[in-house]
């Protein structure tokens, strides 16, 4: 039964990710006075791509073809670790937050290799930029996550969320810092403005798009899907760690349904905030990204310090 729910949750993750992307696109369209596409447009795009024949370059090695599958499955595995609608599931109990970060790194590694594999200038450039950013973003992310895990004295996300739930509403300065840090990291990692612009193919600025420039057909569909999944994963992380209320602690149908509604509501709100931020902020120069991520790291560090100084028991 538990495993069933765990599988259901992961399926929900995978299934809902394009919906979130669609909602985000819609919000941005409203804000920018454009006509919005249907909410289901990402699904249609994926379907269209899957039906198309993939074109693969002659120079491509086996890695290029296998990479989309590896990336997608690694991201799905990461999704199993993160509690979406319920805590205390067997999948999330078996792996902790460091494993999740590891899955992300694994996926990114193969994405970068795939970018390099084809030998075009853009692919290599994108890979190099991606690795630069991730090497800066990862410590910041871990710092923010450690703040949480130190509070809950566990690195397991599921237990940590239960811990936060049990304590009720406690205002923690460390969480405020960690939240900001995690938001900044999430923006960088999912390639949103101001770090990267997912809607442009302007050669000077693109990062993520540069690496997948040579992909087409079902390969492209998988990579797109994986990045939508990643966006949702970060959204869920932020929503469920800092505002876990609503998540199901028992496996009754009522609680699970309520949990689903709650997380969808939270994600919808987060997407609106993200859309507003993306509309207001301009993309920054690539060389400013290190400052930005340095700031995120500083916030994460401050979060941890303020946990030790302000909150820890003496």
């Amino acid at each position, binding site marked *: 039964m538990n495993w069933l729910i765990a599988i259901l949750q992961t399926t929900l993750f995978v299934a809902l990710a394009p919906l979130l992307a669609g909602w985000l696109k819609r919000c941005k369209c409203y804000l920018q006075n454009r006509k919005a596409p249907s909410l289901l447009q990402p699904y249609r795009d994926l379907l269209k791509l899957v039906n198309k024949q993939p074109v693969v370059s002659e120079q491509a090695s086996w890695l290029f073809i296998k990479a989309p599958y590896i990336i997608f499955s690694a991201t799905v595995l990461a999704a199993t670790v993160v509690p979406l609608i319920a805590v205390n599931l067997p999948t999330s109990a078996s792996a902790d937050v460091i494993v999740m970060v590891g899955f992300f790194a694994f996926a990114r590694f193969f994405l970068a290799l795939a970018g390099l594999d084809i030998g075009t200038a853009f692919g290599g450039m994108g890979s190099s930029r991606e690795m630069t950013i991730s090497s800066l973003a990862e410590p910041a992310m871990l710092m923010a996550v450690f703040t949480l895990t130190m509070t809950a004295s566990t690195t397991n996300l599921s237990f940590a969320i239960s811990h936060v739930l049990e304590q009720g509403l406690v205002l*923690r300065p460390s969480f*405020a810092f960690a939240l900001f840090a995690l938001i900044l990291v999430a923006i960088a990692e999912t390639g949103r403005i101001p770090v990267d612009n997912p809607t442009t193919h302007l050669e000077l600025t693109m990062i993520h798009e540069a690496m997948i420039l040579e992909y087409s057909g079902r390969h492209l569909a998988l990579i797109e899907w994986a990045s939508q999944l990643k966006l949702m994963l970060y959204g869920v992380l932020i929503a469920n760690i800092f505002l876990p209320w609503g998540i199901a602690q028992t496996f009754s149908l009522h609680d699970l349904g309520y949990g689903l509604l709650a997380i969808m509501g939270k994600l919808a709100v987060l997407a609106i905030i993200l859309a507003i931020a993306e509309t207001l902020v301009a993309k920054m120069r690539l060389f400013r990204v290190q400052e930005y991520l340095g700031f995120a790291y*500083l916030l994460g560090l401050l979060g941890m310090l303020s946990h030790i100084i*302000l909150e820890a028991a003496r």
Partner: protein
Amino acid sequence: MNIESQDFYTQIILSMAALVGLTSFLMLGQGRLLRLIFMFAVQGLLLTLTTAVAAYSLNNHHLYISAVLTLALKVIFIPWMLRNEVLKTNLHRDVEALANQTAVMLGGASLMVFSYYVLHPIVQTTSPVMLNALAVSLSVMLLGMLLMISHKQAIAHVVGFMSIENGLFFAAIVATKGMPMVVELGIAFDVLVAAVLFGIFFFHIRSSIDSLDVDLLNKLHEVDK
């Protein structure tokens, strides 16, 4: 001290302390004057909120007055005045190249540690919450000074000066639930007069050296050059 065991008021105060400290750090690393002023206004707003929370939870009416005073002076009047000055002198397009940014930030961090060190003897006799509040306000003061040292624009100096006042004010609110009314009114009056005087000084400095870069104020030496 475990934060879960503290009451809600203490939690708010601690969070505010952390955020006020953060705004000080943000100001320290800020080369653009308009953003600097904005951060200063945010800090003022945090102070206003802290004061209002303290007033509410302690049911102390005169703290409401100081909250309103803070709002009027530090969130509205002074930032407005500084902003006008920046726009008038066309400084909002300049980004000040801060020398030794990294060293300054590290210096800021060590100042924070230093304030905890200085105030640590207090912890034996009072609650750790007070230690935190006092240490944060002391470090806001010290960071304000560092801001004045590391920036060259007169406007940044004024922001630093006023953020020192902010730190003091935070200590007064949190540690002692506000000073007696007469003292607080006096301090607010002094801040107001100081702000007006700074306005006058900007005018004088600009008419005398045709810039607001205080590094050009270097005519007076111990010995003739």
